[in-house]
């Protein structure tokens, strides 16, 4: 089909109307842009997550591609089987894309993820990181930010540890492509998906996922919040291509983490809880992460990236 209008980011709509996401949810926008690039000949593997629901109950499918729903811990393993079977059937051009949340990626699914990354499975793994188990009602995951309150870290016992450096963990698997993506920077978002699509091997994309019910934000603030996360370095946009780090978006205006925090109800409790100290800690941590990232960007990749292909 010819593109209808070159001014639109989405030329071929790959989602049907009527997705079951909450207002302001990152999943719908993420999947809409992702699927438009991946095309119809794509099998999405979906572990337990908000997207299990959003994709539609039996017998519905919001996507024009296919969906294999799977168990919580098993996204990357199931995708391994799907990839192997499609390859056996000579369908090497069909894309296999995992759509998982942070719980299914950082926590219960990390073993299968590590296995698939190490084997160099030819799949794209997309993690919609909204920083908690949102589908079950906002429980703490190892992606939950320091300072946030969740239903399992209720105020005053809010989350007192920093999230796992999952990108660093995936990078240690020496995969060909890793990137962070934000819905507030769609050009960058689209470019990274297109780039990932052209690469063979294990590709990992982490998207900052707005979640109005979980972050306690008004739905119309989702994109503003996502932009603030980038501007404040909470969620810097970068990629790691064959071991080479590269920051892809340098915001014109730098913001303090306080602005990002104050937009979200999940941090409200801090106001009665030694606010300035906590914010200062969070700012220091974020600054340190940014310094490390910029240092990595200045380094050459010295890791051997042999092309890994199964025969």
């Amino acid at each position, binding site marked *: 089909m010819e593109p209808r209008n070159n001014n639109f980011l989405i030329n071929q709509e790959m989602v049907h109307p009527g997705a079951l996401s909450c207002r302001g949810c990152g999943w719908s926008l993420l999947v809409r842009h992702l699927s438009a690039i991946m095309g119809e000949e794509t099998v999405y593997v979906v572990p337990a997550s908000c997207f299990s629901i959003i994709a539609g109950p*039996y017998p519905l499918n919001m996507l024009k591609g*296919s969906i294999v729903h*799977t168990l919580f811990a098993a996204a990357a393993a199931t995708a391994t089987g799907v990839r192997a079977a499609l390859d056996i059937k000579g369908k090497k051009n069909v894309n296999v894309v995992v759509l998982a949340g942070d719980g299914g990626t950082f926590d219960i699914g990390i073993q*299968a993820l590590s*296995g698939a990354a190490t084997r160099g499975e030819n799949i794209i793994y997309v993690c919609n990181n909204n920083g908690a188990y949102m589908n079950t009602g906002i429980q703490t995951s190892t992606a939950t930010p320091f300072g946030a309150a969740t239903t399992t870290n209720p105020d005053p016992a809010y989350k007192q540890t920093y999230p796992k450096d999952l990108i660093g963990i995936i990078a240690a698997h020496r995969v060909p492509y890793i990137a962070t993506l934000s819905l507030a920077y769609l050009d960058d978002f689209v470019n990274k998906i297109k780039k990932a699509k052209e690469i063979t091997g294990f590709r990992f994309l982490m998207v900052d996922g707005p979640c109005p019910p979980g972050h306690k934000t008004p739905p119309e603030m989702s994109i503003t919040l996502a932009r603030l996360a980038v501007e404040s370095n909470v969620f810097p946009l970068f990629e790691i291509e064959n071991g080479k780090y590269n920051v892809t978006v340098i915001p014109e205006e730098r913001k303090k983490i306080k602005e990002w925090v104050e937009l979200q109800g999940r941090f409200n409790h801090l106001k009665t809880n030694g606010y300035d100290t906590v914010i200062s800690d969070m700012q220091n941590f974020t600054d340190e992460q940014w310094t490390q990232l910029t240092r990595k960007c200045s380094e050459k990749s010295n890791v051997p990236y042999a092309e890994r292909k199964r025969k």
Partner: protein
Amino acid sequence: MNRYPNHTKKVLHGNAAAAEAAVVCNAEFIPAYPITPQTTIVEKIANKVADGKTGATFINMDSEHSVFCAAMGASVCGVRIFTATSGQGLFYAHEVLHAIAHSRLPVVACNVGRPSFPWNIWSDQTDSLAQRDTGWIQLYGESAQEVIDSVIQAYRVCEEVNIPGLVVLDAFYQSHTSENVWIPSADLVNQYLPPLKSSELTIDGWFSKAYGGLVPPAQYDKFNHHFWKEMSRVEDLINSTGKQFKTVFGREYGAVEAVNISEKTKQILVTLSSITSTAKGVLGGHKETGLIKIRLFRPFPKKSIFEAIKNIQDDCSFIVIDRNYPGEIEGTLMQEMKRVLYGRKHPVYNVYAGVGGRDVPPDTIEKIIEKFRKKEVARDEVSWIDLE
């Protein structure tokens, strides 16, 4: 010499027979993870893949959970799967066993039985019997020959009803014991086992489909009901395809095997796996003792058992031998036999024997026969014969 035409005779362990079965059945995808005493099955398949003796895709996974999930993902896309596991591996995959069965995927796997914890790697059926409610067909056998034949038959039946199948081997007595094994040629297997068919549900990457999404209450029981209808056919299918097996391969199998059962039989031993062979050897000296070997454990072969015992008298007793401990009073096989014999007058006794891999020699079988021959034994007697 050539007892079975179009077969190759080899001396093989049961585990090697399982690997041969995967190859002659043309399993296309083998996700693998090591665990004693199963490991040599996947090792032998890995060797066959490395040597080009099969074009199968072999992948070293990160756990049994991942093994069975990869099997599920590949099976959804319509390829034939084989894998093998044991004990903790099967326990770890428990969640996925349900998912595979209720996704109606005809995955076939071997399990080499061992118990749970504390560590024990020896022969015991606690692992597979504990999976009885996962929706997998389960076959138990006595010999390395039965391993290869049961895997072939499992593919035939499982792919017809879209239900997965587990072929269970006894640890060491079957898995690591060398025996003469007749390996059928791939051509012969092709006569019996048609190629795996795709259906409109098969995920092909070309047409938009969704598999496994949320099923609301108004539909869920319909899936279960359909599963139930197909599961209800399995016992007959095992018997009919077991007869066809003879016409192609020269060996016949049924859901159960009855030995020495007539209207004169006073007691019947009920066994699984290699204890059966030992018991068969003892029966010669006991004219009034018969035996039922349960080959098909899931679904439990009620009809075949009734057929086997149709001539016995009401006072004929059953002695059910359990090589498993399910954390209950009665062993797993005993529970199944009791439900089959519900409403009948036969005394039914339960014996735990060989649990955790303790050897069950002919003497133990003799001891069991003698103990329960006496009239003074209480009807609900549960015996730990090895500890008495």
